[in-house]
């Protein structure tokens, strides 16, 4: 009888999440997959016929009549991956030394700087991007300052370039890289570093052979957390990027809100989703392998 009552409680506890995520998370994903294989309707919507040309347009097969293969889609996809990868690398380069620095501070200051890092997380994303719009504009703060110092004679064209997009993404993603890195660096046993130096390793050797491997899980975790939202991002390129800064997220948005080609938009999102899942599963497998090595 006790067992049956336990099962009942368990059911009550699990029912909300199962129903909610089943209907409003899994089902929509299934519908995207389904729509990506249907034909676009004439005035938006779909026709319920099997249609693989949506993928053909992206990956290089086309019927030559209505749907044309255009390499621009793969280019934009490649660009999105490139931007995301650059964002990850730049975040790492910025955060790693700072994480190290913060972890070596007296505890009062440590808490203060961690608070400073997490604070932007609480403030609006769009506000933070907007700030860069103000700074990078041709008549913006950066150009005003540089011209005022006579360093340049003409305003720099930074806004609406790929550089602006990557800068914006780095700015938005930095806290997500910092926290896992910090916890890895902070958990690092200092005796390990001292032992390595004591045994005759140089600073560089100690870093490469002790510190880096020990903090690898944090690096990996932070990279995944930064990479995934970066690939599919459409807000940052929308605000800071021009035509050359367009990413796959913007393509998807266009298909839904202006071109009204839902099946093609679904196919594009399937590509994003697949990319993300591949990255996620690979990194999880890598983390597990690393874990079993250590064990």
């Amino acid at each position, binding site marked *: 009888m006790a067992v049956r009552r336990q099962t009942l*409680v*368990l059911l009550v*506890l*699990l029912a*909300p*999440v199962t129903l*909610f*995520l089943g209907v*409003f*998370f899994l089902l*929509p*994903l299934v*519908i*995207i997959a389904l*729509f990506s294989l249907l034909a676009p309707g004439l005035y938006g919507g779909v026709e319920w016929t099997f249609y693989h040309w949506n993928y053909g347009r992206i990956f290089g097969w086309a019927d030559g009549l209505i749907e044309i293969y255009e390499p621009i889609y793969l280019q934009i996809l490649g660009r999105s991956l490139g931007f995301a990868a650059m964002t990850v690398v730049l975040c790492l380069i*910025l955060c790693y*030394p*700072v994480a*190290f*620095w*913060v972890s070596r501070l007296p505890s009062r200051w440590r808490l203060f*700087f961690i*608070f*400073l*890092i997490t*604070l932007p*997380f*609480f*403030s*609006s*994303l*769009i*506000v*933070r991007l*907007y*700030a860069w*719009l*103000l*700074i990078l504009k041709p*008549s*913006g*703060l950066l150009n*005003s300052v540089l011209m005022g110092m006579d360093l340049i004679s003409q305003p720099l064209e930074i806004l609406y370039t790929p550089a602006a997009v990557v800068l914006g993404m780095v*700015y938005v993603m930095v806290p997500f890289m910092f926290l896992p890195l910090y916890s890895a660096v902070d958990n690092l046993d200092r005796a390990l570093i001292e032992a390595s*130096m004591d045994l005759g390793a140089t600073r560089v050797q100690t870093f490469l052979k002790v510190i880096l491997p020990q903090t690898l899980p944090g690096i990996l975790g932070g990279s995944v957390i930064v990479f995934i*939202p970066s*690939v*599919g*991002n*459409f*807000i940052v390129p929308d*605000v800071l990027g021009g035509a050359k800064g367009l990413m796959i997220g913007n393509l*998807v*948005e266009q298909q*839904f809100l202006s071109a009204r080609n839902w099946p093609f938009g*679904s196919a594009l*999102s399937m590509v*994003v*989703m697949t990319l*993300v899942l591949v990255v996620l599963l690979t990194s999880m497998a890598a983390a597990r392998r690393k874990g079993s090595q250590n064990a």
Partner: protein
Amino acid sequence: MRNPLGWAALTLFSLVFFLFIYAPLLVIIGYSFNSNPVNMMQWEHFTFDWYRGLLGLGERAADPNNRAVYVESTEKMLAALRTSLMVAGLSTTISTVIGTATAIALARYRFRAKGFYNGFLMLPMMMPDIVLGIGLLIFFVTVGIHLSMLTIIIGHCTFLSSYVFIIVQARIAGLDPALEEASADLGASEWVTLRKVLLPQLAPGILGGALLAFVISMDDLVITYFVAGTDNTTLPVFIFGMVRRGVKPEINAIATLMILTSVLIAALGLWLRSRKAD
């Protein structure tokens, strides 16, 4: 082992890093008080006009030529703020219940699908929000649910539940299982133990999770952008629209208010955490 020169370089690098994070926010705050309406980056003199304008007050708003524009955008902005607060309030409540129930179920019961649920709950957080947004859009349109505040709330709950789950789960993991055993041992039924011991012990985690959910909901742009429909706008979507249409000086004022609010919320969160520590 500390090399003074290396340490100084590291300190300098770190301080520049923090400047990089905060300078843009300070720029906004500074220019929200700049009276130059044409080029905001040229400092004229100090003014509260943009803040007055937000509230439909002040000389600029009183100017009959300008009035219509300011009053309209003010009303729209306040409506967006109201929508944001209602959406965040309701979706925080719902996702806190869902996330907490799930965390308790996974931590305190043994069943076969446990591993599946643990992975499954990570997915909404890991899924790019654009995919989730268009997925929900197609779903609502296909099923025939009118896009409204309800669809925004549903959209938010799909990923907020996972955030609450993570935070509450971390709290349960740190809890001594003997606490619940002690309660049962002293004569409390499962339900009484839940009410008198487990929930109070989890309270800091639940509160922290709810706070996080509220902040994320208030800030969500992408999901809302797709499932809001035409009648409802949240504050981030409203500002996004303003930013897209071209920069207006009142944005600085709104943005400054939002930054200050977020500082307050973050401070509240920190205070909660320090209370949890004792």
